[in-house]
């Protein structure tokens, strides 16, 4: 619930903090460089400027999207695939900004495996987490080079990370280069990447995105606007000052490896906005393409209307 | 308080134990039960205590049927049944505790009389067999009930301690005249203590004989050496022998 209704006649406030509106943003995973903008906005007081008192929460297990949909938190860091699936199940959640303009994920493999393009997947072992989406993506990629997905061995590796898998005879896995890829380079392990975006436009979906629920949009649009404005400013800062932004993230989450954060931040700085006219911009065709692709591959059950799944209306206008 | 039992029947599964038991204890009377091992004496106590229900028959206290009613008698079980996590003193007040605030002063006095003054704070596992039995006996005495059912209370005591305890029990009984029902295997003990003696047959038990003990009170141990005593004892022994040898 939003706590904007303060009891009137409350005793004197210290430096006006009581006027701030309390909102909660739920992360999708542990804090990482995808979230830098939020931490910057927090640390540099951008949220406060917008009259918000933001609490950043790490949910651990799944369910962050439902939390926001049910109104127990106002904002969530989610991803396009999740929102698409959620909306077909009538979960009222809407994307309000794309954190990173293009999909930076891809299939990573140690160089000595010699996997340079999807056709090299043949005869190899893929380690995943058992989602039907994975197989569909692999198939799509391999089809572009007329490779046969049947010749690929897909192993369910559960929650194991890339490095663990690599140790267990698994040839390649799906990672975000901006985090796991950077870690590999820090370790001096050379890896090959096969990016999704290089082979299929439809798979260039937004991940991650900021999202909220429909009720917030209809009943508290100004809060949403304020939040997006501050976040946008935060990400802008991260784009312009990756080193400083990395320091802010490391300060907020000292448990993270500072070197990894810094390197990841530097790599990601120009990926946030990339070729978009402004940070956070989302395109209808991206939403439509990906949903179509999901339907084609039988991983989407039910009706999905891409127009209602996202909105750019809260993004600050040029020069705002 | 008087106890009357009419036509009591009880069996455990296929095994008949009590058959047509009729028995009275008048107010302030001291009644002993003798009978072969395994005849059903302890079972009778369980019925009186309300722990098990008879197939038929009634148990009356002061004329009122009390089949299956608990908490009306003071009881000393055949095995001491002390609580291992309670000290001797805490054990003896247990029965009293169930009804009221126990009188520790009195408890200490009785322990002293039973030669257990030094063991007040000992745990049951530090006691000898006979000492446990005495603790259990005192617990029954302190229970403050008008009917006392004692199941072989002195079986683990040496002859002299036993005599002391018997005399003590008699003096207590003479002072406040509770009704006492007393199971024993010692014919001497039954004759020395009781007003009347019931002799149980072997299982399934019925009342083989009821004997009025003719000796006047107060009694002392010289009684045990009189010829009348000896003759009565012989007679009872004969009854018991008949029961077991057939």
């Amino acid at each position, binding site marked *: 619930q939003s706590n904007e209704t303060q009891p009137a006649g409350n005793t004197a406030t210290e430096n006006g903090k009581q006027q701030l509106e309390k909102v*909660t943003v*739920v992360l999708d*995973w*542990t*804090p*990482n460089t995808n979230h830098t903008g939020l931490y910057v906005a927090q640390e540099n007081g951008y949220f406060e400027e917008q009259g918000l008192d933001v*609490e950043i*929460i*790490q*949910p*651990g*297990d*799944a*369910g962050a999207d*439902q*939390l926001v949909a*049910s109104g*127990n*938190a106002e904002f969530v860091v989610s991803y396009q695939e999740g929102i698409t699936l959620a909306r077909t199940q009538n979960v009222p959640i809407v994307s309000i900004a794309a954190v990173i303009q293009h999909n930076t994920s891809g299939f990573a493999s140690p160089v000595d495996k010699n996997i340079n393009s999807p056709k090299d997947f043949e005869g190899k072992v893929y380690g995943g987490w058992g989602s039907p989406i994975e197989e569909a993506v692999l198939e799509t990629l391999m089809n572009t080079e007329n490779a046969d997905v049947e010749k690929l061995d897909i192993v369910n590796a559960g929650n194991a*990370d890339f*490095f663990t898998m690599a*140790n267990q005879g698994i040839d390649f896995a799906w990672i975000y280069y901006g985090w796991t890829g950077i*870690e590999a380079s820090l*370790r001096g392990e050379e890896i090959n990447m096969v990016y999704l975006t290089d082979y299929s436009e439809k798979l260039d979906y937004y991940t991650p995105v900021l999202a909220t629920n429909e009720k917030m949009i209809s009943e508290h649009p100004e809060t949403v606007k304020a939040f997006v404005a501050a976040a946008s400013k935060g990400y802008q800062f991260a784009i312009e000052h990756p080193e400083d932004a990395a320091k802010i993230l490391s300060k907020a*989450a*000292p*448990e*993270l*490896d500072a070197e*990894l*954060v810094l390197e990841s931040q530097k790599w990601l700085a120009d990926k946030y906005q990339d070729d978009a006219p402004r940070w956070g911009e989302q395109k209808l065709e991206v939403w439509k393409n990906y949903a179509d692709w999901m339907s084609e591959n039988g991983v989407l059950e039910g009706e999905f209307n891409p127009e209602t799944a996202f909105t750019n209306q809260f993004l600050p206008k040029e020069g705002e | 308080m008087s106890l009357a039992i009419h036509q009591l029947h009880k069996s455990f599964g296929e095994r008949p134990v009590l058959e047509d038991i009729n028995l009275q204890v008048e107010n302030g009377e001291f009644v002993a039960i003798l009978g072969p091992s395994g005849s059903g004496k302890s079972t009778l*106590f*369980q019925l009186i*205590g309300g*722990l098990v229900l008879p197939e038929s028959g009634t148990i009356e206290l002061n004329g009122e049927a009390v089949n299956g009613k*608990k*908490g*009306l*008698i*003071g*009881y000393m*079980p055949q*095995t*001491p*049944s*002390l*609580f*291992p*996590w309670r*000290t001797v003193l805490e054990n003896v007040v*247990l*029965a009293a*505790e*169930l*009804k009221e605030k126990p009188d520790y002063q009195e408890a200490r006095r009785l322990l002293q009389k039973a030669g257990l003054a030094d063991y007040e704070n000992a*745990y*049951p*596992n530090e006691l000898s067999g006979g000492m*446990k039995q005495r603790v259990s006996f005192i617990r029954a005495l302190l*229970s403050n009930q008008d009917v006392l059912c004692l199941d072989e209370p002195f079986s683990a005591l040496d002859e002299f301690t036993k005599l002391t305890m018997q005399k003590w029990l008699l003096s207590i009984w003479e002072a406040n005249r509770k009704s006492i029902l007393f199971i024993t295997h010692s014919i001497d003990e039954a004759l020395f203590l009781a007003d009347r003696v019931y002799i149980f047959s072997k299982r399934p038990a019925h009342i083989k004989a009821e004997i009025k003990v003719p000796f006047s009170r107060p009694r002392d141990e010289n009684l045990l050496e009189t010829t009348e005593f000896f003759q009565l004892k012989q007679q009872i022994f004969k009854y018991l022998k008949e029961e077991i040898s057939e």
Partner: protein
Amino acid sequence: MPKISFRGGSAIAFLLFLFVLWELLVRLTKTPMWLLPAPSAILTEAAAGFGDFYGHLLSTIFLALLGLVVGCGIGLLTAIFLYRLPKVNEMLYPLVILSQNIPTIVLAPLLIIWFGFGLLPKLIVISLVCFFPIVVASMDGFRQTAPELKHYLNMAGATDKQIFWKLEFPHALPSIFSGLKISATYSVMGAVISEWLGAKQGIGVYMTLAQSSFRVDRVFVAIFFIMLLSVLLFGVIRMIEKLAVKGRKAGNR
């Protein structure tokens, strides 16, 4: 007393031996840090990062203790309640078992939706973990009362309540402590798990963060403290048991 300290000593000596073995193995096989750090590396990190870690530790200790107390309290009450009301027991006991089979991934969002991000949902998760062993162990303890003592109390006219409090409960104490020991062991992990429900601090938070940035040494620092806490709690319960169950070590011969 000298005995107790010696016993601890033997276990600690053995643990030290294991650590040395581990250190040697890691060094000899040149296992990379990110796979399995050597105890020395963990120790170094623990010392270096203790300032940061301290707050997390306190927060988890607080959660674990609170959850243990609440969970065991509720567990004991539940056991007493169910044992003394057999009719209710028949109906509710299956629910007690069911309560142990709600996966956290389902429970977590529901709890947050109902109770927000505060202390309450976390407490519920820990309590849920801690309460079950107590319930089962206590109920079994109550049921196994020495029949001759129960027979005596019944004959003496004790009410059900008196039988329970004077006999069944004290008699079940060792079983209850057995359950308590299991619960205490689980409480720390329970607290760590409960921190999935959106905690800001705590060993669980620290550990996932470390894990996601591939700082395996920090993960192990967290594990060490989790283990230390559990063993400590277990030890404390055992000490309390020794005091509470005193005087009947040998029972009656």
